[in-house]
């Protein structure tokens, strides 16, 4: 799990010009992606999580630009790439991306097999027969039954879940080092989502792929990720292993996010509710962007932007609460309950099939309250 850093993002600032105004999407985001891991980037809409991923592929919209910061991948700074030719050596070949809507990635006029074959042939320099064999093998691997038949079908003949499998096959067939998944299951039903998540997990394990998983769903994070980066208003505000972030969160925004989840709440009690809305991306942010919505904010939060404070070797957060001068501020009730589980160790007892696992998880949260 503690592989070398394959992608290192430092203080990345990205802005877009929108009808004469500047919209700041990333305000100095930093992130480490390690070889062979699945890192989940969580955030609400407008937090900048999708923009962050797009910068790794040079896929920002035309009105957007990287203002400063760096993205180191294999010794090169991708933030400095401007020519389309430079990106062609990266995009799809070494870093591939799958999206929420699989239809945007598939050409409706070509058979699914041919599309994947062309991509594989291009990126891996294979001839027709070899690339065809790779595609059939990949289709089988992503759980598409009867690959020979499916190879000759068009995207509209696939169901939503199967389309997403096909898109994953297209990405995986090129053997990228990093697979970026941008909300790949948001448009799918829960039962189909579970299958796709399972597929991504097994691919990551078997092929040793590095996965960057972008989502707003903390359930999905808990399911797929080994590490988590929490984003708010254009910054990564907390990064750590999935257990550290879920069971020992430090940033007030992460607290609020977890405490507001009905899945972790106690029935009949109020949920922790976050007031207001995220700050406008058009406005300059002074201090901690979450401060105006945070009842636990310190005065310093309104004046100075918090730096990164390490919590452990694998865990850091951007909050003044970690400064030695800060007073002891109690986390919300739900978060305090979650903390009790940190000690329990990784080898949880939940292995039962069916509904047992979900039920077991839910029960113990609620049990902890009593």
């Amino acid at each position: 799990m503690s592989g070398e850093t394959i992608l290192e993002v430092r203080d990345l600032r990205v802005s877009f010009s929108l009808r004469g105004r500047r919209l700041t999407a990333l305000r100095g985001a930093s992130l480490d992606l390690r070889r062979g891991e699945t890192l989940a980037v969580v955030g609400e809409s407008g937090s900048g999580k999708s923009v962050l991923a797009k910068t790794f592929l040079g896929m920002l919209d035309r009105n957007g630009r990287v203002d400063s910061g760096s993205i180191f991948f294999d010794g090169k700074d991708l933030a400095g790439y401007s020519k389309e030719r430079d990106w062609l050596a990266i995009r799809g070949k070494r870093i591939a991306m799958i999206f929420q809507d699989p239809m945007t990635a598939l050409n409706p006029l070509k058979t699914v097999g041919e599309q994947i074959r062309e991509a594989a042939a291009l990126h891996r320099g294979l001839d027709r027969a070899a690339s065809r064999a790779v595609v059939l093998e990949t289709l089988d691997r992503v759980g598409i039954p009867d690959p020979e038949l499916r190879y000759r079908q068009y995207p509209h003949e696939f169901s939503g879940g199967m389309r997403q499998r096909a898109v994953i096959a297209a990405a995986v067939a090129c053997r990228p080092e990093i697979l970026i998944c941008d909300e790949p299951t948001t448009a799918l039903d829960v039962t189909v989502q579970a299958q796709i998540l399972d597929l991504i997990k097994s691919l990551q394990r078997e092929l040793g792929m590095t996965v960057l998983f972008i989502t707003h769903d903390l359930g999905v994070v808990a399911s797929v990720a080994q590490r988590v980066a929490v984003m708010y208003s254009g910054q990564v505000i907390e990064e750590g292993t999935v257990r550290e972030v879920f069971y020992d969160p430090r940033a007030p925004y992460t607290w609020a996010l977890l405490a507001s989840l009905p899945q972790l709440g106690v029935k009949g009690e109020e949920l922790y509710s976050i007031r207001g809305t995220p700050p406008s991306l058009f406005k300059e942010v002074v201090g901690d962007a979450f401060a105006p919505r945070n009842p636990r904010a310190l005065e310093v939060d309104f004046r100075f932007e918090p730096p990164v404070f390490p919590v452990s070797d694998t865990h850091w957060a951007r909050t003044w609460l970690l400064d030695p001068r800060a007073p002891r501020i109690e986390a919300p009730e739900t978060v305090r309950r979650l903390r009790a589980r940190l000690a329990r160790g990784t080898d949880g007892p939940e292995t039962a099939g069916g509904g047992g696992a979900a039920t077991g998880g839910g029960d113990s949260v609620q049990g902890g309250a009593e």
Partner: protein
Amino acid sequence: MIRTIPEVPAELFRPAAFDAEAAERTGYARYSYWRSTFRTFLKSPVSIFLLALIVVLTTASFVYPLFAHVDLGAVNLDTETWNLSPNRDHVFGTDGLGRDIWALTWYGTRTSLLLGFVIAILDVGIGMIAGALWGYVRKLDRIMTELYNVLNNIPQTVFLVLLAYIMRPGFWTIVTALCSTGWIGIARFVRNKVITIRDAEYNVASRCLGTPLRRMITRNVLPYLVSILIMEAALTIPYSIGSEVFLGFIGLGLPIDTISLGNLVNQGKNNFMLYPYQLTWPTVIMAAITVSFYIVGNRFSDASDPRNHV
């Protein structure tokens, strides 16, 4: 990772006051649909210029006949004043009957604009109501679609020629001729729009509240169509003026004693080889009006699209 702690005063490390109502107030932005529409529209100097041109031409053509004491029906037997080239007394020259073309052009413009406005109001008015019902009342769909097919498949020219023969040539004949086919095009356009918004959640919400059909149309549907209806009207005006000229051209227009741009252009055409200015001025004015309405209509429809608002 960076582990620097900037020089931050220690006294700031104390809890700040929290104002929940302030958090609520941050959520919204001031925005008004119509204000933004006009602001976007008026941003372009071309739009402002053409709109001003339309206003000036329209006002002038309606005001001029009130002040000009020119009797255009008077018989003038003084051949000296016939077919004069533009000069100090007659800036646009005179026609074959010695009438001042400057005056004729204003009278003609007035007739043509009036025709355009009447047709636009009738077309859009009928089209809007028929289209809203067509889109909203599912039972009407079959009948209206058939009617549309019938009306749409008769060549317009044949229809106009027929009507012009059946009815006596005149202002209202042209209005009837153009409106009887024009409204259904707009109705269909409105119907398609209505169908796209009919099942929108806010309409379902209104139905759940038991809102009657009349108010559904006036409050939920038409406000969404106002901008495109204004555009349709703005486009119908030049089309009607052009049609009148065309009808005049093929000899089915207004009676020869009615002064309209169509009749002027038609006369000018006959004398074009000898007295080109007789065709030039009415044509220039007509072109200015039609192009202005066309561009203003399109600019307005762009401006009314919320996606173009800042």
